[in-house]
């Protein structure tokens, strides 16, 4: 009987599955803050703070003009710089360590393992006070180098941990075969293991980029006027006395849109990336 129904129609009832209905309701709840941000970003300043709130009002790009005329544009550039340097530096240092971790023994392995776990447990506020003190001594406050190093406190252990999980998935036999054929350790890493773990590297890289894009606590303390990223700059529109919700929403959009695009482009890998560390670790 079913065979007579065209494929197109047969798939239709799936849309009305009760589980899908519930999931879509959940998505509506998830969407509310995003809808608020988007609507508010295009509102006139008066409408954005209206009591009672007006859900829909005349559209303006005044808020975007405000943020791009102000210091916010510079902070967006800073965010781009910090995100780039942090992602590259963390991957360059963390990926080989993850490999070493997944393969064989080396002196300091247990120490590194223990410390990775420990620093995953300790909150950044424990590190930030002394880091602030000795960065001040070394002149690293308000520098991109200092910020990149500080971002790595959380991101480097994460990267080593995740990459160890990905490299453990690469069959060791392939590397052994390469080594029998005369490849050095270095070559079996760069020519065999790394290409096979490349999806993992790009997922971890994306997660690092997204985390550095949104990082607030570290730059809030260690950044200065020349290095303030957008995540800190955006708060300037929410002062204690005057709040410019429209400008804040417009600025928030500039932080949300890149993350939306990255997440939806890389969703498959990301679900794996988020869970790999949790399930295997």
């Amino acid at each position, binding site marked *: 009987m079913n065979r007579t129904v065209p494929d197109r129609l047969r798939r239709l009832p799936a849309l009305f599955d009760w589980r899908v209905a519930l999931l879509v309701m959940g998505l509506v709840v998830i969407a509310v803050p995003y809808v608020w941000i988007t609507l508010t970003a295009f509102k006139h300043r008066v409408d954005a*703070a209206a009591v009672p709130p007006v859900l829909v009002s005349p559209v303006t790009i005044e808020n975007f003009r405000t943020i791009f005329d102000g210091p916010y544009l510079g902070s967006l550039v800073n965010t781009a710089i910090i995100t780039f340097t942090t992602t590259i530096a963390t991957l360059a240092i963390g990926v080989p360590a993850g490999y070493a*971790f997944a393969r064989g023994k080396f002196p300091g392995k247990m120490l590194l393992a223990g410390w990775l776990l420990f620093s995953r447990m*300790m909150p950044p506020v424990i*590190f930030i006070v002394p880091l602030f003190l000795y960065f001040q001594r070394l002149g690293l406050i308000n520098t991109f180098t200092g910020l990149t190093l500080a971002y790595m406190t959380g991101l480097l252990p994460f990267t080593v941990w995740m990459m160890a999980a990905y490299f453990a998935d690469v069959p060791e036999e392939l590397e052994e075969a390469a080594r029998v054929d005369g490849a050095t350790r270095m070559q079996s890493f760069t020519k065999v293991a790394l290409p096979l773990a490349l999806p993992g590297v790009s997922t971890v890289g994306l997660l690092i980029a997204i985390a550095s894009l949104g990082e607030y606590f570290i730059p809030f303390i260690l950044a200065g006027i020349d290095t303030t990223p957008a995540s800190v700059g955006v708060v300037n529109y929410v002062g204690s006395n005057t709040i410019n919700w429209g400008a804040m929403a417009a600025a928030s959009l500039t*932080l*949300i849109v890149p993350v939306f695009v990255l997440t939806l482009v890389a969703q498959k890998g990301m679900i794996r990336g988020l869970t790999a560390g949790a399930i295997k670790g």
Partner: protein
Amino acid sequence: MSLPQLGRHLALARRGGQTVLIWSDRHFLKFAAWPSLVIMIAITAIPFALTLALAFTNYDLVRYDDWRFIDFENFRIIGRTRQTTTIILNTVYLVVAAATLEAAFGLALAMLMAAKVRSIGLIRSLYLLPIMTSPIVVAMTWRAMFNNNAGWINYFLGVAHLPQPLWLGNPLLAMPAVIISDMWTGVPFMAILLLAGLLGVPEHIKEAAAIDGAGPLQIFRYIILPWIRPVMFVAVLLKSLDLFRKFEGIAVLTSGGPGFASTTLNLHVYNTGLRYHQLGLAAAWGVVMMGVIGTSALVLYFALGRTR
């Protein structure tokens, strides 16, 4: 230099090069791992040791050239502080309430997401978005949503003829507001992690149980729950660690107020050290915080993580 001599030199050099190659080959893993180790020592181990040391000093940023070791005085101060119990209880309240709610709702959401229906991939990835959104943006947006007069939450409560409380200004509602805003990202986070566990439950075990006459509730209780317990442990642990370090969602939403009603250990360490410049005292609070985190992790391990 005569020709044979040059030849000998070249041979030596070649052998030297080879030795270097063999040597670097043998130690490759070390070279791969040590940069990470060195950086970790510089940016986490040394700061951590400094925190431990600072906890026993009266170091203050305002008069930084006049400090000395003061033994356990900082901890005595913490013991004497009136708000200490409140702050620790607030922290436990936030972590336990948020993690429990998120685990429960997250499990329900994960079970829905495990459905094999069309476009489930798209739905799953849309649920990723709150997890990826910058916490500071989330915090500011929820502050707007919870606003007394202009906020959407009270507006919709008014439309439904429900009471419109002063969310962020009420000592009893400040922490629930923080928890609600945390659930917006926390429930999807839990769901994505638990989904991976749920998808790992072998179909044939469920089928065998169903053939033996087990109902859906029994399958859930005796097959699914025990199967996903290790994943649940890791998910709750990761989420709890995130809750202990929650900063933006409290600092921007309530500033820890009203009074100390939503001040957690994390916020208090920050306030003491970086707002009031008492770095020594802040470090001591940090040590207390690590104690609380360590204890909680142990409790969680004995409750969920132990393998029978």
